[in-house]
């Protein structure tokens, strides 16, 4: 480097400048019903917005076809675990194209309030082959970071029932639903620990109980920070 009086730089040729296009990023927040994934997703979204990125929160509603099928006596019988798994995976692909793929392609950040792991863990709880289930979701955009929000199944169930049926209706819950949620929670733990095949490798952050939510979010923020700065998470 030279020190001089004036600038010694000469323009040799001009390079047309393009606006800097930041790669989009997908973060999945996973957890059982009532674990508080929506609260975590919204807090993370606000935090990322403060860093100057546009953020979308996409809620997982892939169980719509199952609810419709289960409500009808003619179709309920046909709803075996395998058929349910395939219908939910198809619905997830349909919704993901608009709610996840397009914003990411536009360079935005998407926080999925539950994503493929939730689908995988529910199918694991229904007793299907883990590798087959994981493959159903491997064509979805891969998240750069998966945040697993852990909650005791019985506490989560109480909250999930309050959400769905109104407060104080926990006695209306069948033991089967409680057992199912516990099995889904175990499936999510298996995915986080690598004991069960996941659709794609992803940096995983497990948020445990005990500390105030703001403190618990610190490791998730650190992982997302690294992904945003490192330009990771480009969706293939």
């Amino acid at each position: 480097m030279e020190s001089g009086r004036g600038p010694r730089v000469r323009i040799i040729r001009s390079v047309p400048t393009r606006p800097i296009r930041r790669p989009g990023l997908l973060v999945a927040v996973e957890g059982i019903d009532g674990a508080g994934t929506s609260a975590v997703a919204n807090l993370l979204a606000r935090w990322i917005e403060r860093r100057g990125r546009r953020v979308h929160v996409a809620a997982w509603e892939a169980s719509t076809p199952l609810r419709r099928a289960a409500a009808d006596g003619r179709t309920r019988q046909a709803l075996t675990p395998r058929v349910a798994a395939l219908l939910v995976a198809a619905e997830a692909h349909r919704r993901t194209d608009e709610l996840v793929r397009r914003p990411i392609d536009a360079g935005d950040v998407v926080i999925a309030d539950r994503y493929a792991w939730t689908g995988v863990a529910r199918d694991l709880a229904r007793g299907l082959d883990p590798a087959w289930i994981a493959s159903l979701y491997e064509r979805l955009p891969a998240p750069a970071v998966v945040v697993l929000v852990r909650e005791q199944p019985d506490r989560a169930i109480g909250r999930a029932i309050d959400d769905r049926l109104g407060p104080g209706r926990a006695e209306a819950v069948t033991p089967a639903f409680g057992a199912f949620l516990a099995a889904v929670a175990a499936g999510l733990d298996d995915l986080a620990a690598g004991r069960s095949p996941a659709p794609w490798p992803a940096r995983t952050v497990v948020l445990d109980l005990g500390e105030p939510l703001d403190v618990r979010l610190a490791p998730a923020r650190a992982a997302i920070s690294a992904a945003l700065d490192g330009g990771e998470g480009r969706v293939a």
Partner: protein
Amino acid sequence: MNGTPGRLIVLEGIDRSGRSTHAGLLEAHLRYHGRGVTRTSLGSSVLSADALRRAKRGRRPDPVEIALLSAADLAERVERVVDPALRAGLVVVADRWTWTPIARAELRGVDRGWLDRLFSFAPAPDLVALLDLDPDASLARRDAPDPYEAGLDLHLADDLRESYRLFGTRLAGWFDAESRRRGWLRVPADEPVDRVEARLEAAVDRLTGVPGRRRGRSRSRAT
């Protein structure tokens, strides 16, 4: 053999190759010879048929979503119809199996390994017969093709019928390679119906032992 006392016979082939006609004729033939028969056909499930139709008619049909719905359609029929029938020793005649949805997705760029894993739950057929028909002949036999089945989303041609012809040619090439690899029975579908029928019945009879078994039974009854 699929490990059950039943037999699974699959008819594959492009549109208007006579699959459902010959499925009906095979059913009548087998019933005449005293075999119990169940038929099943692509897109006839209770839970997935409507969603499958809607997905194909969407503005931007997603081949992965359509493959998943096709698998749901087949899974329901396997679990409710095909598996119980095979265990009970019936002959199942299927109008298309995993190959038509796999071909339609693979020709749209979906990974073949993923498609094979997706459909790995389906029992292996005892006999696959490919009804060979030229795409031009298929086109001449039909009115307006379905846009997805014509591959219109692949932008091969603006005209629906021309797109159908071009996509049908690719589909025919796919089935040609697949049938050679797997040693399927190939029957020219442009021959008269009774000639096609005779060839299919001969192969099915060898598999199910139909007339032979019947003669055996009547002999034992006579003694």
